[in-house]
Every structure is written in structure tokens, then in C-alpha cells.
């Protein structure tokens, strides 16, 4: 066989394939992206919660974006316990000061970071939360201490609108 030379036909083939690939991609993308959260789902951005009735040592659970959010008013013992832990002991090192801006209030997504179950309050080896599905133990700051979950329970974006109201999202 003689050495192949690039000719006009090769160029036409390559150009056709390239345009074809872009066309196929542009056609498939809307089919894929339609499955992402739609505008109405994204619109449910924030929730305001009245926490005036929550006493120390109590947790309330509210629904935000279809997920439970734990709002716990912690006791002094729990705060002390959470703040005395050394960061080196943690699987996912985060200080309690960073997780709870106001030490009395812990606001976090009540979703186990393993496979998404809702952990149970005041259970487990670290007096915090325990996930019944696959046995993850969280401490009084919601940090993972034992079990298969890879990270601490997530802290959503929130702020105190006034001393009695928390706005999540």
C-alpha cells in the first residue's frame, strides 16, 4: 500500500464527524439536564423557624428542601464536651466553634452522611446522634466519631433573624 495522503475527502469526513458529534451532544444534553432540580424545586430556598419554645436539652426537627434540619439547644455539659475534643481525634476535623456560632444552638442537616438516613437524637457512644441504618455515631457537635459515615453532619447556611427566629437557607 502506498503512503496515505490527506486529501479533501478526509477533511470532509473529519469535519462531518466533528459537526455530528457536537449535534448529538447538543441533542442529548437537554435530555440529561431535564432530570436536574427544576425551577420550582430551587425556589423553595429558605425557611424561618420560631425557636422561642425550645428549652435547653431539647431538639426540634424542621423540614427544609425536603430534608430534616435538627435545631438543638445544647446544655452546658454538651457544649463543654464538644469543645474539649482534640481535633486530632476526629475523622473529619472541624472545631465546635466553627460548627456552632452561638454555642447554645446547633443547627445542622439531620442527614447521616453515610447513606442519608435520619440519625436518632441522644443516642450512641458519644451522647450525640446515632444512625440506626448502618451504625454511625455522632458527638454533641454532630461530628462523626465511629462508623461508616465519612464526614460530619452538614451545617446549612442559617442566621438569627432575631433572638427567637432562625432563618435556614
Amino acid at each position: 500500500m502506498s503512503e496515505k495522503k490527506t486529501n479533501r475527502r478526509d477533511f470532509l469526513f473529519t469535519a462531518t464527524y466533528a459537526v455530528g458529534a457536537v449535534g448529538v451532544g447538543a441533542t442529548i444534553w437537554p435530555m440529561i439536564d431535564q432530570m436536574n432540580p427544576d425551577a420550582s424545586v430551587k425556589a423553595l430556598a429558605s425557611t424561618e423557624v420560631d425557636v422561642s419554645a425550645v428549652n435547653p436539652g431539647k431538639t426540634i426537627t424542621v423540614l427544609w428542601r425536603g430534608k430534616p434540619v435538627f435545631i438543638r439547644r445544647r446544655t452546658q455539659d454538651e457544649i463543654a464536651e464538644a469543645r474539649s475534643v482534640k481535633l486530632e481525634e476526629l475523622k473529619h476535623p472541624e472545631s465546635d466553634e466553627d460548627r456552632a456560632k452561638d454555642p447554645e444552638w446547633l443547627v445542622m442537616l439531620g442527614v447521616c452522611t453515610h447513606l442519608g438516613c435520619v440519625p436518632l437524637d441522644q443516642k450512641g457512644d458519644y451522647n450525640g446522634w446515632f444512625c440506626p441504618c448502618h451504625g454511625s455515631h455522632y458527638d454533641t457537635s454532630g461530628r462523626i466519631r465511629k462508623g461508616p459515615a465519612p464526614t460530619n453532619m452538614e451545617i446549612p447556611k442559617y442566621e438569627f433573624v432575631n433572638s427567637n427566629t432562625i432563618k435556614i437557607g
Partner: protein
Amino acid sequence: MSDHQYTPESKFGKWFNDRLPLLTLANHLTDYPTPKNLNYWWTFGGILTFCLITQIVTGLVLAMHYIAHADMAFDSVEHIMRDVNYGWLIRYIHANGASMFFLAVYIHIFRSLFYGSYKAPREIIWIIGIIIYLLMMAAAFMGYVLPWGQMSFWGATVITNLFSAIPLVGEGIVTWLWGGYSVDNPTLTRFFTLHYLIPFLILGLVVLHIWALHVPGNNNPVGIDIKKPSKDTVPFHPYIVIKDGFALLMFMIVFAFFVFYTPNILGHADNYIEADPLVTPAHIVPEWYLLPFYAILRSVPDKLLGVVAMLSAIFILAALPWLDTSKIRSAVFRPLYRQFYWILVADVLILGYVGAMPAEGLYLLIARVATAYYFLHFLVILPVLGFREKTLPIPLSITEPVLGGSPNLATAKNKESSIIK
């Protein structure tokens, strides 16, 4: 395919067959030469076809009454149970039919493992079978979500969250699967669509599975290649049709027992509580047919590695034709493999049992040992066994051991050779 040419007798038949050779296909299927020693373990292919058709027909009817919406799905299922004429029957057949389908497919798979049906030249049949099995699991999982009970919701949450173990893109994939920030109405509607689609994909793959089967023909309990057609074969119709039909009747008795006498024993009471995103049931368990893989997932104390182990446990099966290095197909002539085969069966049953138990203490330890053994079987024992095992002599034909007059094939062979001496 059949060697001989087929010509329809009637003039119209010939005219039609020349234009679309459907009659040639029908003739191929009825005359198809089948090993004459196929035992009842070979009847599960036909039983599985019955299961697929049953699921498609009952599912079609259920879809006429079911409403795929987070606010209405649970009530519409109760509406089917209480108001729709024979709705209870159709739904119980569909729900228990899924379990029967898996029961039959596990027997079918373990039959292949025992008799080496996955070996050359049947690798493609085997791999198509594994793809069908994967699709069955996907269909069963999505179907279980549709009643929108507590187990539906939390099962969907746990299984979709498996994808969050993928580094970097995991969270994005999960949000994409959900169509939101949690399992919700968009998730339900897409699962309904896919649950409707998958059985038809399975149907297409079943056609390929049978097509690929009809190229080399059936394996058989002796596991040797046979001439087709010959005195070792019988035509599919009426011999195998009658045998399959009888086995199907027996199977339907078991099926009917579940449907009419204990329709909820294979389900979970929690699924009669409507989905609540704020409360996880104390003990989440998948359906029984997924328990061995669930046990493998939980036995690994790391999220990503647990998911990898679980998926590997399934995909390793696709590599089986190359992991098993033995030239001998049937376990009948492999004394060592036969023992390891039964250990594997016990291992999978143990995994299923611990998968249903809480993941702690002794159960967790047993799950870890059983998981390790599962991989050991496929990755170490099978490859090594092919080189080390001293196999028994195989007969030259199916007829040979029968004429030897002994049910033990090896003895028959020895006896025969001593007679000749």
C-alpha cells in the same frame, strides 16, 4: 441452527414463509435438538420466561390504576387493594411475582455454576444473563419505591446515596438522580417511568439470551459437547415442552401459596406506613433477594470501599468464564469444585441472613468473614482449582454412562472398561 431446510406444506404457508420466514423460526424452535439428559434444574429458563410475562401483564394492569405522585401514590395503592375489582389479587401477584422471579433466577444462576454452563462457548449467554440480572435488580428496586411507604422512601434514599460515594461528582449525580435535594416527587415519577421501561429491555435481552443459546445448544448435566441432532438429543417439542410445563405447574403451586396464603410475608410492615422524610424506620432492610449484597456493603467500614465491594460482588460474576480455569464443565466430574460449590451456596445464604440482621457484634464479624470468602472463592479458589484438581474421567457421550447401567457415571465408566478387558 438446524441443518435441514424447512418448507411449509400449505401453499399459503410457503408463500408467506418466502416473504417472512416466521414458520422456519417456529420449526427451528419445535425441532431444536436438546440433550436428552436435561434434569429439572434446566426447567427454570421456561419458568423465568413465565415470570417475566406475569410481571409485564400484571404491571400493565396496575399502571391503569396507580398514580405516580408523592401525594397520591400511597393512597392509590390502597385504592387498588380495596376498590379496584380484583386489585388485591393483581397487586399481590405482582409483588410476590418479583420474589418468585428472583427465586427462579437464583436457582437458574446456581444451576449454571454447578454444571459450568458459563464456560466456552457459552460466555456471551452468561454475560447477557448477568446484564438481565442487573436490570432485574434495578426494576425490583424502583418498583419497591412506587407504593411510597416508609421502606420505599428510605430504601430509595439509601440506594441512591450509594452514588454519593463517587469522589468529586458523587453529590451532583445524586441530586441529578433525585431531581431535587432529597427523594421526592420528581424521583417518584422518573422511577415509575424507568420501572415501566426496564421489563421491555429485559424482554429484548431474553431474546438475545435464547438466540445465543441456540448457537451452541444447551449444556447438560454431563457437561460434554454432543452432536446435534444425534441419539444424545431429543426435539424440544414435545419432550422439553412437557417437562418444562410440569415444572412450571409445580412452581405455580409455590407461587399461589404465597399469593393466597401469606401475601405479605416477603414484604415489610413498615411499607404500609406512608413515606415520612422526617423519620427513618428503626431497621432498614432491603427485600430478601438483595440481602447478600447488602451484607457485603455493610461489612466494609468505609463508604466508598463498601460500595465498591458490593458492586464488585455482582460484576465479578461477568468475569467468571475466565476466572474458572478448569476445562471440565460439570461439577459431577470435579470432586473438589463440588465441595467448594456447596460452601459458596452456604456462604451466600449466610450473607443473606446477616444482611437481614443489625450490623453489629457477631453478625458484623460473620458478614466480614463471609464477604472475604465470597471473593476468595472467585479470585483464588476457582483459578487455582483448574490447575490443581484431579478430575474424574468424562464419558464420550450422554448415552455411554446410561448403557453402563450405573447412576454413578464414574463407576459406570470403570465397569465398562473392565468388561471390555
